């Protein structure tokens, strides 16, 4: 067990547990060369995790579940407002630590985080709920159902989240969902980025101390059996983010009767129509495309890996690839790519080599020293993710519609498509993309910023969490008959 220097920043949110009761482990980060960072993460014993789960479940019932939805929204909103304030100490911690943890360019992280948090203000949260519930008051009380009778939606008493990844802010999606359905929440911090969820938990607890023990953020080394198994066994619902292997592993720990929702790894594509490829728009499109590529280094499920570029515009697909290359080169100056870990460097090198040795003639823009690479192919290629880290494939196509149809075999892995076409084509093209398995169509430049209330991977993020209880009309009628004021002969 590594000893933890007292100065190390402590991740996690552990209501009811004192620091000295917990065993801490150290994670080391070298995101910024020359500024190594140590973060202490809590390694709970199974009994501690079990007690924490009981406490969170109980307090969520006593506090969170007695609040009306609008009060929950208001508290999340205030916590988000704190984190949007550049002078707030918690926001400053996030701004300081996240680049050192992830290696992402500091400005890019700051801007990305702000953009992300903005989609969690009160109006957006209300919209988020309305997306899934035509009458959001079903989360507060029994409401009349159209078919007759009354319905009410209940979130899980205990929702366990297995967060993944180092795209800062990802845990906010699922934690916000959990809070909106008034669940007690326990999230597992990703080893790759334990900071953001911790900071958000602290902001929320500071906004309303009564909420402090309605949620927790814990940690264990990914793949370890405990306390994962203990928490999964206590949960009403388990949410897992991660690759197939991770998801399968977690699924195996979840009791059969427990609801299990998994969000696997995905990839994004973009389709650029000829109408967007005149001399003025083409360059602008390439700039937006480069931003989608560079934001969070294509580590997001929404990030683009392949651009299908249509022939027949003023700017031909090869020129677009070249423009994209120059834009990536320029972005590389303003927002440098992080120094790559050896395994990532091998992956990037391997991807470059596969292009270089590919039997279909391809052009590779960007040499070994460039912190980006654009591979251009005149011929259709089977869809495949690149190595990320600003490696992108451009494929020239005659018709975007055909490119969209060809995605279908990869449906399980598809999520976002950036599209740049005229209105007449947007709907038919979107329909084809949707049929192929894409669940989100958006503008170029917006790929990494999903709207509030989006249906992540095509699901109802809130509705999937709740269970509906309904009082049928017959029960109402029967009750009426048993009322002290009931009249025997009333029909």
């Amino acid at each position, binding site marked *: 067990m590594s000893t933890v220097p007292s100065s190390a920043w402590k991740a996690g949110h552990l209501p009811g547990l004192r620091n000295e009761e917990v065993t801490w482990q150290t994670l080391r980060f070298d995101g910024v060369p020359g500024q190594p960072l140590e973060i202490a993460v809590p390694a709970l014993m199974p009994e501690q995790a079990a007690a924490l789960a009981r406490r969170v479940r109980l307090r969520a019932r006593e506090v969170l579940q007695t609040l009306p939805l609008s009060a929950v929204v208001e508290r999340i909103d205030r916590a988000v407002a704190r984190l949007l304030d550049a002078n707030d100490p918690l926001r400053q911690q996030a701004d300081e630590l996240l680049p050192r943890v992830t290696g992402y360019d500091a400005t890019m992280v700051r801007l990305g985080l702000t953009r992300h948090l903005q989609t969690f203000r009160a109006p957006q949260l209300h919209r988020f709920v309305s997306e899934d519930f035509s009458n959001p008051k079903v989360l507060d009380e029994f409401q009349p159902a159209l078919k007759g009778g009354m319905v009410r939606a209940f979130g899980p008493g205990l929702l366990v989240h297995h967060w*993944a*990844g*180092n*795209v800062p802010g*990802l845990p906010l999606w699922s934690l916000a969902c959990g809070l909106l359905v008034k669940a007690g929440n326990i999230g597992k911090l990703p080893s*790759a980025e334990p900071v953001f969820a911790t900071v958000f938990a602290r902001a929320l607890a500071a906004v309303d101390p009564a909420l402090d023990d309605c949620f927790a953020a814990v940690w264990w080394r990914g793949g370890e059996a405990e306390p994962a198994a203990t928490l999964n066994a206590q949960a009403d619902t388990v949410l897992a*983010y*991660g*690759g*197939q*292997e991770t998801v399968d592993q977690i699924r195996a720990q979840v009791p059969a009767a427990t609801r299990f929702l998994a*969000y696997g*790894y*995905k*990839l994004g594509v973009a389709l650029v129509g000829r109408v967007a490829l005149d001399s003025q728009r083409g360059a602008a499109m390439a700039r937006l495309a480069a931003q989608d590529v560079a934001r*969070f280094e*294509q*580590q*997001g*499920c929404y*990030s683009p*890996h392949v651009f299908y570029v249509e022939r027949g515009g003023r700017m031909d697909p090869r020129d677009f690839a070249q423009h994209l290359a120059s834009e990536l080169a320029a972005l590389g100056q303003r927002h440098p790519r992080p120094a*790559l870990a*050896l*395994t*990532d*460097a*091998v*992956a*990037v*090198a*391997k*991807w470059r*080599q*596969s292009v*270089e*040795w*590919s*039997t279909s003639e391809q052009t590779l823009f960007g040499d*070994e*020293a460039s912190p980006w690479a654009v591979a251009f192919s005149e011929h259709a290629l089977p869809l*495949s*993710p*690149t*190595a*990320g880290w600003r490696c992108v494939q451009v494929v020239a196509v005659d018709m975007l519609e055909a490119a969209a149809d060809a995605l279908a075999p990869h449906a399980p*892995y598809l999520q976002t498509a950036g599209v740049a076409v005229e209105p007449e084509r947007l709907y038919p093209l979107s329909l084809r993309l949707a049929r192929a398995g894409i669940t989100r169509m958006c503008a170029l430049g917006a790929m990494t910023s999903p709207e509030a209330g989006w249906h992540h991977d095509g699901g109802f993020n809130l509705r999937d969490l709740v269970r509906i209880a309904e009082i049928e009309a017959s029960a109402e009628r029967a009750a009426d008959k048993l009322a002290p004021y009931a009249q025997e002969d009333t029909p």
Partner: protein
Amino acid sequence: MTPWTMESLSAATRALVPELLAFLAQDGCDDVAFDAMALRLFTHQYAHNEPLRRFCQRRGLTPRRVSTWRDIPAVPINAFKETTLSCEPVQSCERVFMTSGTTRAEVKGRHHHPTIAVWDRSMQRNFAARFMRGGARMPMAILFPPETELGNSSLARYLALAVREFGTAESAWYLTSAGMNLPGLRARLREAESSGEPLAVLGASYGFVHLIDAMAQDGESVRLPAGSRLLDTGGYKRQSRELAPEDFYNEITLRLGVPRAQCINMYGMTELSSQFYDEGNTITPSIKRGPHWSRSRVVDPMTGREMPPGEEGVLTHCDLASFNSTTTILTEDVGVAVDGGFLLLGRAQGAQARGCSLAVAEFLGTA
């Protein structure tokens, strides 16, 4: 198909082979002699191996601009999958070895050997020095399928040669594609223990894991006689549980009674024609070294530039026994250059997705 003969090969190759065999037969070579042979081979490959020539041209490299083996561009091992790297037409080649390819989606890499004589000589000379250490023939127990079952496996060839050239008549195979003959093997180990005659056990690392797991289940262990030694290679390939090297050698020593100093790990690749050995695994990671006809470097995978000693990078090898494909390959194995060789730290697990973006490996089902 007509039987293979040397006569079916080009004059250039036929001229090269005896020179190379003589070079392998030397007691060693200095850097000047190594460079001279490396350049001789590079010139040959540049002239006769078209994909290699195009690769060099993209890098602006011609034989004139290459003055030491370090200047020869390292071909990524993936190229053995993407293209045919061979100076001779493949139909004239005596043997082809293929990578094992753990999934259906994966294309196999192919390494064509116009004559297997050079590969064989390389294996024998190096094995004699590094595993046999000049000793007499030994009975061998082999934990890998025989060559008759896996004709395209370089490891099957390797073990067949080991038995043929260095084993006694009592040597036998205990793993076939049908499975592992654990009862037979365990009986053989007990027999060696009681007879007092040293035994060599050689094979796939996962074969050893199956063996020690089976023995552990029954609480069995043997003490193989002094002079016995083991050779494992190739890692676990998802065929068994995976152990850290420390645990692997501790458990082997516990079950078989062979000290860690007598447990040799061989590092070989289908894309090469020579192998690397350590001097036992008392300390892991052990220092690996190749024969005098090979040189290794540790480089930055992105730029190909050599890493300073002690810093991690990926291994590139220049193997002069690979006269028909390319002498120099870029691996995906992580290593560190140290005095007397390199440390092999395992395979660079190409990009675990760190966010929620799909990684190539998962997409291809090879994660």
